[in-house]
Every structure is written in C-alpha cells, then in structure tokens.
C-alpha cells in the first residue's frame, strides 16, 4: 500500500461551499440595469461627439436624428411595412430551409452510402458564400419576395443539413445497439432513437438559422426588391441619409431579438 494514502485523505478536507447564491429576480434586474446603462452611455457619447462636431453628422448620423427619423417613418412613411416584409421573407425562408435541411440531415442517417456520396458535395456547397448564388437565384425565381425567400432558404438549408446530420451521429451508439438487441429494424431505430436524439441539434440549429435567414432576406432586398429593411437601408445609404440607415439597422436588431426570443421559448419547451 502506498504510504501517502492515509495522509492524503486526511489532508484534503472538503471545502465548504458558500451558500449565498444571488437570488434570481434581483440578479436579473441588476443585469437589466447594467444593460440599460451601457446602451444609454453609448448613445449619449455618440450624441455628444456629434454635437461637439468631433464626428461629422453626415458620416455618422445622430441618435436624436435617428429617433426623429424613426418617428417620421412610422407616422408618415411605411416603416412597419418594410419591417413586415423582411420578417415575412426571413421567417418563410427560415421555415423552408430549416425544415428541408433538417429532414435531409435526419434521413441521411438511414444510408451510410448516401451520406458518404453526398459528403464532398455538401462540403463544396457549404464552402461557397451563398450570396454568390444570389444572381442565379434572381434569374431562376425572379425579383421580389421569391428571391428573398430563396436566398434565405438556401442559406439555412445547408446549415440545418450539416448540423442535424452531425446530431444523428452524436446519438449514443450504445442506444442503437440496445435497439438492435431488442430486434428493432433501422426505420424503427430512426423514429424511436435517432430523430428524438437529434432534436436538441435541430433546436440549436434553429437559433443559428434565424440569423442566417435574416442575412438571406436582407441580401435579397439589396439586390432586387422595392420592399423591406434591406431595400430601405440600401436606398438611404445611396442618398447619404445615414439616420435612415440606422433606423433600418436598429429595426433589424429588434427583429432579430424578437425572433430569437420566440425560438428560445420553443426550445425551452422541448427540453428533457
């Protein structure tokens, strides 16, 4: 027996864990306060720098000007229509791409051969910036809503396919062996173990993909649209109307936060 054994056991008393954990509501409120302070400080600094002419307003815009512009666009312009158009294209593209991509990713588990054959194709497609495909898409589906949705869908499809297929490979191999020992056929294993086992990957892909879908939609609007926040931003930029550009950007941020929160809710429901 090693001589150090007994001494070691005595020399390592379990540390007493501090039990004073921050209470959740007050902790959350504290974070919220800090967040508000941070944002206010940033905007305040920005406003100050512009007012003191340290930053030229025609290059950087101005928070008070952005607010006024937002108000104007809301009351007399069609800001909400633009927001709605981008949100609609993002969500439809997201749903199409994520659903199809996840389905293909899941189905690829059923055929090792198909997965191996498709692998280089998928890697190649994934390597191409999808924005480079935009002109092709416009030629195929025309300008407007179709192009936006198609770009958003193509971006999200490949992300969903790759990560959901990865998810099927991460399912504990012993669970698959257990199912085989129970006499299960591959399709039964797929429905009872692989699909539910890969669900967390589908859900985390959704969080990622809503961002990609918005990129796709906005790029579509840059290229060929008379609607949406991408169109608003692109047009205003061309006219050096930076306050409007910022209105568009902040609307995109707000939209991203809302969509992410919705998906967060959905994800939480599926936790086991």
């Amino acid at each position, binding site marked *: 027996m090693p001589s150090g054994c007994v001494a070691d056991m005595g020399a390592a008393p379990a540390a007493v864990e501090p039990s004073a954990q921050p209470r959740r509501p007050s902790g959350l409120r504290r974070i919220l306060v800090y967040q508000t302070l941070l944002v206010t400080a940033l905007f305040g600094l920005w406003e100050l720098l512009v007012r003191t002419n340290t930053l030229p307003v025609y290059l950087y815009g101005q928070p008070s000007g952005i607010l006024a512009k937002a108000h104007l666009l809301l009351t007399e312009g069609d800001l909400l229509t633009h927001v709605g158009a981008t949100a609609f294209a993002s969500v439809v593209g997201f749903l199409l791409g994520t659903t199809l991509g996840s389905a293909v990713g899941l189905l690829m588990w059923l055929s090792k051969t198909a997965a191996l054959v498709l692998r280089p194709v998928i890697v190649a497609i994934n390597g191409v910036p999808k924005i480079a495909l935009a002109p092709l898409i416009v030629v195929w589906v025309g300008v407007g809503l179709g192009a936006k949705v198609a770009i958003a869908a193509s971006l999200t499809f490949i992300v969903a396919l790759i990560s959901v297929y990865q998810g099927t490979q991460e399912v*504990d191999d*012993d*669970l698959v062996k*257990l*199912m085989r*020992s*129970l*006499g*299960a056929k591959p399709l*039964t294993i797929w429905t*009872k*173990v692989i699909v*539910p*086992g890969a*669900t967390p990957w589908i859900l985390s892909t959704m969080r990622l993909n809503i961002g990609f879908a918005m990129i796709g939609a906005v790029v579509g609007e840059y290229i060929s649209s008379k609607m949406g926040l991408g169109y608003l931003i692109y047009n205003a930029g061309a006219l050096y109307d930076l306050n409007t550009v910022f209105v568009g950007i902040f609307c995109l941020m707000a939209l991203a936060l809302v969509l992410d929160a919705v998906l967060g809710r959905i994800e939480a429901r599926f936790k*086991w």
Partner: protein
Amino acid sequence: MVTAPVLEAKQVTMAFDAGTAREVVAFRDVSFSLKQGEILAIVGPSGCGKSTLFNVIAGLLRPTSGSVSVEGALVDGARGHIGYMLQKDLLLPWRSVLHNVTLGLEVRGSRPDEARERALSLIRRYGLGGFESARPRALSGGMRQRVAFMRTLALDPKAILLDEPFSALDFQTRLILQGDVKRIIREQRKAAILVTHDIGEAIAMSDRVLVLSQRPGTVKAIHDIELCGDTDPGALRRSPAFNAYFDTIWRQLDGHAQAAA
C-alpha cells in the same frame, strides 16, 4: 424438484483467428447449466475473456466449438430469449419511466394497451410506483438501473445476462439493488448470469460462482454458494460462511494476478 436446464453451455471454446499462426484462445471448454430461478456468477481476473464469454452467451459471437442453448435451442442469432442488464442503463432521456419500460414491447409490436399494462404492473410491483411519468434525468442512478431492469423483464426473457450492472452505483445503493434484483429473478423464475469483478457481489447474489482462470480462460472452480438464508446484505457479508467463500475465491484469483505481474 427436477427441472430441465434453461440455459446451458457445453464445452464452449472461443478462439480468434482459429487455425492460423495468430490464433488467440479467449477461453476453453467452459460448461455450466442453469435452471429457472438460478443465478450463476462469473468472476475472473481481467483479461480472462469474461466479456467475450458474455458475448458468446448472448449469441452475439459464435463460439469456435461447443454450444450455448436456451431451452434446448442454440442462442446464436436467435434474439429475444435473453435479456440484458448492463453497466449503463441506456434509458432514453426523452421518454418517461413508463415509456422506457415499454420500449422493447413497442419494438416487438405488442398492443399499446397491453404493453402499458404489463409495464405498469412491473413498475408498481418493484418499487417505482409514483414515478411512471418521471423522466430519467429526475431519477437517481439506482432508480435508473431499476427502470433498465424493468425494461428487460417486460419482454419476459427466459434468461437474463447481468454485465456489471451495479458497478457505477454507490455502495449502499449497490447492496440494496443486488438484493432486489436477486429476489426478482427468483420470483420471476428467470435464469441469470452475472458477470462481475466484485467477489462479494458474486457471492451475495448467486447460487454458484464460476471462477475463470487467466487467459486462456478455463473453469478453475465452481463454488456452490450456501448461505443460511440471510437476506440482510450487511449481516450476510459478516457471516463466517460468506467470508470463507470470499477468501477461497480471492486466493484463486490472486494467484493468477501474481503470476501475471
């Protein structure tokens, strides 16, 4: 009472690359037979081919010579006669306790209401009542192993293979579960084989302990375990008979460990 053996191994030998220069014999001439309600423990030094033997008994590997049969039918390839309880519980985390227990029945195509009824009666009878709709995440390690055992029992196998099913559990839970699993196997009239490193566990749970020698594994001894009906795990382990068995088996394993070192 005379009953036919449920599980029988006759002169089972397993060699890899048999007949070539690289031939490795995992074990040789292993024979035993088990009746309903009997438990046989297999102990041996590491590397004695225990897990290979397990796979042969399970019908997952075909022996080089000899045969393993369940109620007279060879096990190889035939599924469903044998159930397993392994170190990992392998519960599906997204399914409730009830639906984990019905898993095998679903795969076999049982009617859902019958599967449910059978699972519920097992769950309630063996100490999991009230946890039917709990998720595995909410259960302790011991309870999870209980659920895994119920899943095995639900299929009503003739024989059950236990492969170190308690080794991941804390000591107290392990003793309790050993006692319960032993009782249930008797009650349900199953034949069971327990593969374990733990000599105490082998003695406490089984009717016979088979000691394998260092590779190539051969049957070094089979001990009939007769303890005077003591069911309390603590008292059992303090009894002189228990200690005598422990000592004998320990020596039989130890001699080989020293030879290998």
